[in-house]
């Protein structure tokens, strides 16, 4: 077997899809060819990187509930609960994830619960203004909640020095007022690097984190934050 033939079947080999004779022939070639061994290592690293950073996405609870009700066997407990139940029952978390205002409503209806922690995800410059307006409503409806705003990709634009909203108002003083109310803003360092934006272009009220996505994951898994995106 030469290197060209080896390259053709390397992926099928890695996927366990190669018939035995070809697999044996490839392994014999790998034993004697350093270059192809290097290729095999790269392939392994690539597969590892993809698998480490991706995963099956879970269907949102709201979608699951809807499909189960629509297509599953009708059981008594499947019937829609009274109106309030939709927000307060098993669907509360998904409704919270879908709508910031639903979160606020839920909190307003449940004042006795421990103040929840919420991470706002902003990855789009167009929605930043709307997200801040919602956040403002959210804080008014549910005082005492802890909010961290994580921005990455185009979503960091509103935290750049001199950035203005669609009415021409500077974002910086708005962000400052949120900071005074206990909201934290975190910016993805990877985004800055990729977009070649210098750290000093970010307003001082925002902190840097190595990866915005990783931070969102960490806040949820380690600190019990609930995820919200508009």
């Amino acid at each position, binding site marked *: 077997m030469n290197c060209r033939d080896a390259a053709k079947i390397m*992926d099928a080999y890695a996927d366990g899809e190669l018939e035995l004779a070809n697999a044996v022939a490839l392994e014999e070639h790998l034993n004697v060819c350093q270059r192809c061994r290097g290729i095999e290592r*790269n392939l392994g690293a690539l597969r590892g990187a993809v698998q480490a*950073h991706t995963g099956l*996405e879970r269907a949102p609870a709201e979608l699951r509930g809807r499909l189960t009700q629509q297509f*599953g066997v009708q059981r008594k407990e499947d019937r829609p609960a009274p109106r309030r139940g939709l927000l307060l029952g098993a669907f509360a978390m998904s409704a919270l994830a879908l709508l910031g205002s639903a979160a606020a409503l839920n909190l307003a209806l449940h004042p006795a619960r421990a103040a929840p922690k919420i991470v706002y995800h902003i990855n789009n410059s167009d929605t930043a203004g709307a997200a801040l307006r919602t956040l403002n409503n959210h804080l008014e409806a549910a005082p005492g909640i802890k909010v961290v705003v994580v921005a990455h990709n185009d979503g960091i634009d509103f935290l750049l020095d001199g950035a203005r909203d669609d009415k021409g108002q500077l974002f910086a003083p708005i962000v400052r007022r949120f900071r005074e109310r206990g909201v934290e803003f975190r910016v993805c360092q990877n985004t800055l*690097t990729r977009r070649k934006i210098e750290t000093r272009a970010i307003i001082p009220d925002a902190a840097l984190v190595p990866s*915005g996505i*990783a931070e969102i994951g960490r806040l949820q898994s380690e600190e019990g934050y609930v995820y919200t995106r508009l």
Partner: protein
Amino acid sequence: MTDAVTRERFERLLLPHMDAAYSLARWLMRHDALAEEAVQEAYLRAFRFFESMRGEEARPWLLGIVRNVCYTALQQGRGTAACDAFEDERHGEDAVAPGAVVSFPINPELAAIESADRELVHRSLDALADEFREALVLREIHGYSYREIATIVGAPIGTVMSRISRGRRLLQRLLADGIERKDTAA
């Protein structure tokens, strides 16, 4: 089949695959709400054509429908346009044997691949043309065999093998390029 029997069978065979359906739709549509819409529509169609699913495995059958719904929606202009797709610019699909054209980049790319972060991996996958992305997503994330993938995408196994192989070469190049850009920017 009576309605109750159909529902029971549908619930048993198809409802357990909601996560797989959503996950595939999410990767193809690249948008949460549009992925939800696609899954809802796919289940509606699956229910309507459920009687036609005979002797086939339920999951690949369902995912084939999800895939069709997604591509129909994308063609109609819903969803993220694939205009930025990273195509193999040199050869048409199936023109050559897998792995024979896009040359294997070899080390020192290893270090670049190993240090790729989540954002770069996702960005690079998103930049792949649809046929490469769906093949890699079904293989690496869903863990399907080449045969199952062939059923889902409606293509011969040889084509699936070719797409996976070429998709990986393209992805590898994207990851390495992404890292290089980061390095020069830092």
